[in-house]
């Protein structure tokens, strides 16, 4: 078995080059979107449901943070500096990088069988019993054994599929809904979510889930051996135990 695994690895890297490049492009643009998104958010840390909402409206949710606008009642005695100009510029620029990278990745994923081979779980793995066993096995946060590192387990597969095919499309959709020009072409894309403010609120919550994913993802990489795993995502090669990545 050992020789076969080694041979396969010699032919096919742990992560294909395109997966590695798109992974880091998405990482970079996601971090830019996160920082600028927070900056834009603090100019109005209030959320509403429906089409409209402003400081004269009752908020659906008010974040207990200071704001970069004096017009927003926050209870804090100070106003943070306005960072919206460059934040909005960079937010949309990073969004372009993320979306274009995502399109290349998805095209590759479908055409080259990346999704089929690496991400779609086998039907047998999806029985409630198997899933429950997998979750229990993960709870103690144990380092994975050597034979687990060659491919993704079912929980990883489901999580990545959720992020790629649900959370990312949702965050793009709700983000686009806030563009008045986009909304003029596809008003239904806004109305179906309840309106522009609903879209903004959903954009925030989907982003929270993406940030949650980022934390858990980095924690798992750390538990599985940070240098080795990050090395594999850079070089494509998974170093053997004892070998320095």
């Amino acid at each position, binding site marked *: 078995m050992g020789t076969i695994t080694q041979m396969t690895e010699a032919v096919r890297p742990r992560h294909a080059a395109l997966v590695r490049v798109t992974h880091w492009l998405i990482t970079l643009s996601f971090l830019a979107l996160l920082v600028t998104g927070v900056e834009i958010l603090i100019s109005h840390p209030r959320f509403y449901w429906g089409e*409209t909402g402003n400081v004269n409206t009752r908020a659906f949710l008010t974040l207990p943070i200071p704001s970069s606008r004096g017009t927003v009642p926050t209870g804090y005695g100070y106003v943070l500096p306005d960072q919206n100009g460059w934040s909005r*510029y960079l937010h949309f*620029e990073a969004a372009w990088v993320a979306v274009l990278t995502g399109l290349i990745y998805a095209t590759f994923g479908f055409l080259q069988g990346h999704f089929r081979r690496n991400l779609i779980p086998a039907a047998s793995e999806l029985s409630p019993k198997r899933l429950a066993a997998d979750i229990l096995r993960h709870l103690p946060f144990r380092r994975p054994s050597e034979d687990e590192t060659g491919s993704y387990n079912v929980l990883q597969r489901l999580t990545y599929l959720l992020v790629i095919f649900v959370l990312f499309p949702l965050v793009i959709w709700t983000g686009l809904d806030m563009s008045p020009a986009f909304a003029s*072409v596809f008003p239904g894309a806004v109305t179906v979510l309840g309106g522009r403010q609903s879209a903004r609120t959903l954009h925030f919550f989907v982003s929270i889930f993406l940030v949650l994913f980022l934390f858990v993802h980095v924690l798992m990489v750390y538990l599985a051996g940070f240098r080795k795993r990050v090395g594999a995502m850079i070089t494509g090669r998974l170093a053997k135990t004892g070998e320095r990545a």
Partner: protein
Amino acid sequence: MSMISRRKLITTGLLATAGATGLGVAAKLAQHYGLIPPDAGTLYGAGETLTYAAQRLFARHSLAQEFARSQISKDPFANEVDPLGAEFQRIQQGGFADWRLAVDGMVARPASFSLAELQSFPRSTQITLIACEEGWSYIAEWSGVPLGHVLNLVGALPAARYVVYRSFQPDWWDSIDMADALHPQTLLALGMNGAELPIPFGGPLRLRVPRQLGYKNVKYITRLTLTDNLKRFGKGLGSAAPEGGYAWYAGI
């Protein structure tokens, strides 16, 4: 030098030349079709250009959604307005009889209109949403003169590409391209929710561009200048917004 590396060098050189020429042609075409925003040369110009070009290609003639009368916000928010000063107060006390809208630049017949003249022009009414770049929004019924009507009256020259608009507040000046200027929903707004446009909301005259965010909807409009070159205005970035770090185009 071996044959292979020489061949490689020639191929790479040809490809690079073709690529550069292709980019050059693409840039020329984009410029010709008005897909390059005036702040394209700034730090985030690449993303800005992609957004503006994409929205001009796919949303040049789209109409902003119009809402039902029942959806008009009962609690619109005017946002902060810097003090308008003694001169504004004087004009206001005179019932804005002295308010003028000058139209100049690339027009056949430069003109200056009083509010009464503007009010006598054909009116258009729309119930649309205005959203601030900060995230908040409200829906109101806006009524006013389509900007296109005024541009027709003064005989806008075919070569004009932008309308620069200036406010009573000198720090607020902006511009829109002709796609927005001639758009049927772009108004010189005189009224809001069935009454005269309240001063905090931009009265007596506000430019209403419903497919762009609030800050392009400049209040207290006093002058329109048609031009084919935004380089001549301010720092050449198209409006006061990029000079303060904000994007010129606010369709997103």
